[in-house]
């Protein structure tokens, strides 16, 4: 597997470029996905999320750049890669005139496996009772769960799931999310979900890749993204005096509704500076931002 900053990477993408006519879908996109993580691959519509997934699975040939999945080069070892990767790209590719079980049989045979795991996986995605019904009668949530079962047939090390929660009802989303976390936490797999639903990702992912207009805007731990970018929120009596004191000590300070936002991640230094002026904050916390705020900032340009 690739090495990125000392972290073993399940996916390494370097300078991926893909154009459709004059439209640039991937603009020298580089990123890494740590192994064993649940990574949210975020971006607005048209950001290049699906194109990236397709490129990693060999469904789209990139114009330039290099990608490695599980330590294997996509352009030369694709046949081996797909045996170790489970994927849902675009809509789940299911045959509606067949039953759920028959779809899983077809998927298993295509992967080169027998029927052995079908019942176990149907239970895992909570489809046991509906497995012998025609897929044409399935709800969207059931189709998504069946697609997840199909993606898991080969016991993949990496799951690439494109908008897997799209269109699911709340109960279906809960089931799906629970299963995804279980795959990472209990089985040590790497899961990458693309989404434009920030709440889902915030609740689920521990690593984030943000793309916009085909290029990388952020990659790292979710906590790094949301920690306020090195800002502290200070609640104190006499906020104007406190702001003046902090500014004179070299901090950048803004004030809103009597609460100060101080540009540092060193809370002790803020506390000490205020204490020297006889001011004692009633609250001093990292200025966590919502993912939505950060996302909009990252993708707005």
């Amino acid at each position: 597997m690739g090495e990125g900053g000392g972290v073993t990477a399940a996916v390494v993408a370097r300078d991926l470029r893909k154009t459709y006519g004059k439209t640039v879908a991937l603009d020298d996109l580089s990123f890494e996905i740590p192994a064993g993580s649940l990574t949210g691959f975020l971006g607005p519509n048209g950001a290049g999320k699906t194109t990236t997934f397709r490129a990693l699975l060999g469904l789209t040939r990139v114009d330039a750049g290099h990608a490695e999945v599980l330590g294997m080069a996509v352009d030369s070892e694709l046949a081996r890669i797909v045996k170790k990767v489970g994927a849902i790209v675009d809509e789940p590719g299911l045959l509606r005139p067949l039953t759920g079980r028959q779809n899983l049989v077809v998927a298993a045979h295509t992967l080169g496996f027998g029927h052995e795991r079908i019942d176990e996986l149907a239970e895992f995605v909570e489809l046991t009772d509906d497995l012998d019904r025609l897929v044409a009668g399935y709800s969207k949530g059931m189709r998504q769960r069946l697609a997840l079962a199909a993606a898991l047939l080969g016991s993949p090390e990496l799951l690439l799931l494109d908008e897997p929660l799209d269109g699911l009802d709340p109960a279906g989303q809960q089931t799906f999310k629970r299963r995804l976390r279980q795959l990472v936490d209990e089985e040590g797999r790497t899961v990458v979900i693309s989404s434009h639903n920030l709440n889902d990702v915030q609740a689920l992912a521990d690593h984030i890749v943000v793309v916009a207009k085909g290029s990388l805007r952020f990659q790292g731990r979710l906590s790094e993204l949301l920690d306020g970018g090195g800002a502290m929120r200070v609640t104190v009596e006499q906020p104007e005096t406190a702001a003046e004191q902090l500014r004179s000590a070299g901090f950048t300070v803004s004030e809103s509704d009597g609460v100060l936002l101080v540009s540092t991640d060193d809370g002790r230094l803020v506390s000490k500076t205020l204490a020297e002026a006889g001011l004692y904050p009633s609250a001093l916390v990292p200025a966590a931002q919502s993912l939505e705020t950060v996302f909009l900032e990252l993708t707005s340009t």
Partner: protein
Amino acid sequence: MKLLIQAELVKLFRRKAYLLMVVILAGLVGMTAFFVVLFPRIAPDLAEGLSPISKPDGYLFGAQQVIGQTWFPLILAVMMLGTEMSGTFWATTLTREARRLRHVTARLLVLSAASWAAIAAAIIGFSVVVAVGAVGEGVLSGTQWVRIFGSALLIQVAWVALGLGLVGLFRSIGPAIGAALAFSFGEALLGLWRPYGNVSLTGNSSALLGAVDPDVFGGMLPGAGIPAERAAVVVGMWAVAALALAWWTLARRDP
């Protein structure tokens, strides 16, 4: 490859398309057998102009009629692969087995075999009607039967490959079916033009069981005057070319 073929068999037999097409084929062949073999004997007054068919030529005639149903392998291939290409199934399939040549090969094998099985059953059915209802005596030799079923297999391979190629080219079931129908009718008509008729797939498919009588309709029937051996070579070349088209279009283009 064995499991990939099993996957194709599941898809083929669990969908209604194949069964429906077999029923249509049986209906067409049954009607032909009835009007050509039985009707002139049951109601000779009404069957004015239709002379009773005799054995053993009736067997060959029946086989010729059934083998001429080249729409069957063509539409079967287009429908089976076309429905997969129209949605996301083809792309999903490639995320499980990336070697596209294996997919093309599995489909060619399974669909050709399935088409041949249906055509062979129809030939046997027509032959039973001839055995029961045709006048005269006599049977075909073993060699002749081998030639009939062998020719049927070669034709199924060529037309299935063409169907796969058309789906690869048009990447969707609607346009591919349109192109298949246009090819079926258009190529047969174009085959009336002798220079093209010599290399026509329709004409050479017709000529596989023996040269079509060059005197009938002034030699205008597709395949008229083409020897069977030459027809086999031409149909084989069509099969190779169509397979190359299928492989190229499915392997070289993003799904």
